[in-house]
C-alpha cells in the first residue's frame, strides 16, 4: 500500500517522494496566501497614501512591508523547490504530462513571476528614484503578479484533478486545445477559491497584528486604519471563499465523486435525503462509521442545492472504477480526507462568522476589546483551513497523480535510490524547520517592534512638503539617521 504516506511503517520510494512533495507543498503554502493577500492590502494602503498624502498610510504600509518581505523570501525559495521536484523526484510524471502540464508553469514564470520579482525590487529600492505614480504602479504589479502566478499554478494543478484539452498519444498526454486547459471548470473554481482564501488570510493576519497593537495602544493612529481595511478584506475574502467552496463541492460530485465520498467517509451510497456528518469515527477495515453525528438533508443540499439527492458511496465507486480502470483499490486515504475536509469547513465557517460580526461592528464604528482579543486568536483559522484544503485536494485525489490517467506510484523517478531520497527528505526537512524558526522569530520581532516612531516624525514634514516620501529629496541621503522604512540601525 504505497499510497498511505504517513501510515507506512517502512518508507518506500513512492512514500518518500510523496512525503517530500507534500511537505514542500504544505510548507510553501503556509507563506503563499499571505504573500498574495498582504501584497494586495499593501497596494491598497499605498493607493490611499497616494490619494490622501496622509502619512499614517505610509507608516502602515512600510510596517506591513517588513513582514511581507520576510514572508515573501520563504515563499519564493520553497516555490523553486516545488517546480524542480517535478523533474528530480517525479521524472515519469513529467514525461507523461509535461506536454500539457509544463505550459502553464512556463507561462507562469514569464507572465507573473518575473513581474512580481522585478517590480518588488523596484518598489523596495525605488522610494527616492521613482515618481509617486510609478512607485504605486510597482506595488500593483507585484500584487497582480502574485495573483496571476496563482492562476497559472492552479491551471497546472487543475489538470491533475480534471484532465482536459489533451489526447492520449505516444504513451503520454499531448495538448490539443490550450483554451480547454484554460477553461477547465476545475480551474475556475479552484482559482477564485484560493485567491479569496489568500485575501482572507492576508486580511485576518493584518487584523490580528493590528489588534495586538490596538490592545496595547502602541500605535493607534497607524493600526486603526489597518484594522478597518483588514476587517473589510476579511469579510469579502471569507464570505467569497465560503460561497466558492460550496460551488466547488458541487462540482466535485460530478468531476471527482470519489474525493467527495472520501471526504464524507461515505462507504455506501446515501439515502435519497442525504444527511451531512459533522463528526464521526471511521473504521476502514469494516468499511463503516460506527459513530456519527449528523445533520439531516445537509449533504443533499450541499451536493445539489435541494433536499433530496443521493451521493454515491466509496464502495460503489470503487467497483465502478475497477470496471473502468482494472482491478485495484481506488479509494484515497479516507481518514485524512474526511478530517481535512472537516477542519477546512469548521475553520472556514468560524472565520467567516467572526469576520461578519467584526466587519459589522467596524462599520458601525465600534471596536470592543473582546473583538480585538478574538481577532488575535482568529489568526490560526486561515492557516488551518488553507493547509487542510490542500490536504483534501491532493490526498483526496489519490491514488491518482493525474486523475484517471496516471497513478501516483507510476510517476516517480524510477532510478533515484532510496538513500538519495532519504538524503533530500532529511536535508529539506532540516532546512525548512530552521528557516521556519528564523522566520517566526523575525515575524514576532517585527510585530513587537511595530512601526518605527522617530522615522515617522522626521518624515511628516517632508512628506507634507513633497506630497510623497522623500521623492526627489537629495539632502536626506546624507542625514545622520537615514530615513527608511526598514532601516533598522
Amino acid at each position, binding site marked *: 500500500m504505497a499510497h498511505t504516506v504517513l501510515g507506512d511503517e517502512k518508507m518506500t520510494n513512492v512514500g518518500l517522494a510523496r512525503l517530500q512533495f507534500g511537505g514542500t507543498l504544505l510548507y510553501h503554502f503556509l507563506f503563499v496566501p499571505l504573500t498574495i493577500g498582504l501584497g494586495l492590502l499593501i497596494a491598497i494602503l499605498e493607493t490611499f497614501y497616494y490619494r490622501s498624502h496622509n502619512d499614517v498610510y505610509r507608516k502602515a504600509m512600510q510596517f506591513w512591508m*517588513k513582514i511581507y*518581505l*520576510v514572508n*515573501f*523570501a*520563504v515563499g519564493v*525559495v*520553497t*516555490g*523553486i523547490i516545488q*517546480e*524542480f521536484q517535478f*523533474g*528530480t523526484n517525479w*521524472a*515519469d510524471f*513529467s*514525461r507523461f504530462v*509535461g*506536454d500539457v502540464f*509544463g*505550459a502553464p*508553469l*512556463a*507561462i507562469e514564470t*514569464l507572465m507573473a513571476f*518575473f513581474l512580481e*520579482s*522585478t*517590480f518588488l*525590487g*523596484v518598489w*523596495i*529600492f*525605488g522610494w*527616492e528614484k*521613482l515618481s509617486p505614480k510609478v512607485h504605486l504602479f510597482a506595488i500593483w504589479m507585484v500584487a497582480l503578479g502574485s495573483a496571476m502566478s496563482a492562476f497559472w499554478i492552479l491551471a497546472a494543478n487543475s489538470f491533475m484533478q480534471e484532465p482536459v484539452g489533451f489526447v492520449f498519444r505516444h504513451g*503520454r498526454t*499531448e*495538448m490539443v486545445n*490550450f483554451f480547454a486547459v484554460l477553461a477547465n471548470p476545475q480551474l475556475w473554481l479552484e482559482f477564485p477559491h484560493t485567491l479569496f482564501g489568500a485575501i482572507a488570510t492576508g486580511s485576518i493576519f493584518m487584523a490580528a497584528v493590528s489588534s495586538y497593537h490596538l490592545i496595547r495602544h502602541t500605535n493607534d493612529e497607524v493600526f486603526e486604519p489597518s484594522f478597518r481595511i483588514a476587517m473589510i478584506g476579511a469579510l469579502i475574502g471569507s464570505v467569497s471563499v465560503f460561497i466558492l467552496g460550496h460551488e466547488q463541492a458541487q462540482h466535485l460530485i460530478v468531476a471527482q465523486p470519489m474525493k467527495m465520498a472520501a471526504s464524507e467517509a461515505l462507504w455506501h451510497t446515501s439515502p435519497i435525503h442525504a444527511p451531512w456528518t459533522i463528526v464521526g469515527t471511521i473504521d476502514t477495515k469494516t468499511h463503516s462509521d460506527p459513530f456519527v453525528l449528523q445533520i439531516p438533508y445537509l449533504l443533499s443540499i450541499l451536493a445539489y442545492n435541494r433536499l433530496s439527492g443521493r451521493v454515491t458511496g466509496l464502495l460503489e465507486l470503487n467497483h465502478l472504477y475497477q470496471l473502468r480502470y482494472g482491478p485495484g483499490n481506488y479509494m484515497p486515504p479516507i481518514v485524512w480526507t474526511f478530517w481535512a475536509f472537516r477542519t477546512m469547513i469548521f475553520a472556514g465557517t468560524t472565520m467567516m462568522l467572526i469576520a461578519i460580526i467584526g466587519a459589522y461592528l467596524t462599520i458601525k464604528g465600534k471596536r470592543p476589546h473582546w473583538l480585538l482579543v478574538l481577532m488575535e486568536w482568529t489568526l490560526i483559522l486561515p492557516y488551518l483551513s488553507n493547509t487542510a484544503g490542500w490536504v483534501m485536494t491532493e490526498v483526496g485525489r489519490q491514488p491518482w497523480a493525474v486523475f484517471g490517467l496516471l497513478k501516483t506510484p507510476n510517476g516517480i*523517478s524510477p*532510478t*533515484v535510490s532510496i538513500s*538519495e531520497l532519504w*538524503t*533530500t527528505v532529511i*536535508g*529539506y526537512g532540516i532546512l525548512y524547520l530552521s528557516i521556519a524558526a*528564523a*522566520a517566526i522569530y*523575525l515575524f514576532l*520581532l*517585527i510585530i513587537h517592534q511595530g512601526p518605527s516612531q522617530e522615522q515617522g516624525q522626521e518624515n511628516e514634514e517632508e512628506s507634507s512638503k513633497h506630497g510623497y516620501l522623500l521623492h526627489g529629496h537629495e539632502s536626506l541621503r*546624507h542625514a545622520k539617521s537615514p530615513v*527608511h522604512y*526598514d*532601516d*533598522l*540601525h
Partner: protein
Amino acid sequence: MLNVTWFVLAVVLFIGYFFLEGFDYGVGMLLPVVGRNDHDRRLVLSTIGPFWDGNEVWLIASGGSLLAAFPAWYASFLSSFYLAFFFLLAALIVRGVAIEFRSRVEDLRWRQIWDSLFVWGSFVPPLVWGFIMANMVRGIPIDAQGNFVGSLLQLVNVYSILGAISVAFVFALHGALFLMIRTKGVLHERAEKIAYRIGPAATGIFLIFVVMTYYQTDIVRRLGLDPGPIPVFAFLSMIAVRLFLQRGQEKWAFVSTGFTIILSTITIFLSLYPDVMISSLNPSWNLTIYNAAANPYSLHVMTIMTIFLLPIVLGYQAWSYWVFRKRIDQHSKLEY
C-alpha cells in the same frame, strides 16, 4: 523547425540566468573580501539588491520552459543530477532567505551567520552548474528510458571538478567587475584589486578546461577540429577583460566576461545539438531535440506566448537596471 526554435529559446533562458545570476553569485562570493565591516557588506549587497530576485526567475523560467518544451529532457536532466540539484536548491533557499533576513535584526552575530550562509549559498550554484555542464558535454550513463543508471561517483571526475571550479572563477570575476561598475570609492578599489587577482587564475583554469574538453569529450567529432568562431571568441573575450581593465574601461571589461559566459553557454549547447542529453552507454539512447520534445501543438502555443511575453520581460528588467544605474558609495542608503 519549432524544435530548433525551442532549443534556441531554452539556450537564451539559460544564458539569461548565467549572465544575470552569474554576477549575483560573484558578488555573493566576494562579500567577505570586499565588505570588511557590516556597513560595507550592506553596501555590497545593495549593488545586487534591486535585481537578484528578478534575476533568479531566469532559472525558474529555464526550468519551466524545459518542462513545457522538452518534458523528457527536463525529466532526465533533473533526475540524473539528483543530488547536485539538491545542493543547488538548498543553496538557493539559504541564499534567498539570508539576504532578506540578515538586516532585520540589529545584532552583529545574527548578521555574520546569515552573511556566511549567503556566501556559501553563492559558491554552491556555480560549482554545481559547472559540474553539471561538464557532465552534460561528456555524456552520462542513461538508459533507453532516459533514466540515470550510474552512480554519483561516475559523475565526479577531474574534468567535471575542473568545470565546476572554472565556472566559479568566471562568475567571481563577473561579480568583481559588476561591483566595479556599481560602486565608487573604497569598495570600487577593492573590487578592482580582486578583479586583477582573479583574472589570470580564471583565464588559466578556463584554458585548461577547454583543452581537456578536447580529450574528454567527443566534441571534435561533433564540431570538427576547427570549432568555429564562437568558442574562440569566448576565450578571447576572457583575455580582453585584462586589457579593458588596464585601460580603465571597466564597463567593457564587464561586457567581456558577459561575452565569455554567453559564448561558452552557446558552445556547450552547440556541441550537444541536436542532442540534449548524451548517453555514455549507447548513442541511440541520446535524447534529442526531437525525441525529447513536446508535441508540435504545445510548442506552437508556447512559441506564441513567449514571443509576446519575453520582450515585455526584457523591457521592464532593462528598465529596472536603468532606474538603479547610479553607483553606490559610502553614503548610499541601505536596504539590507
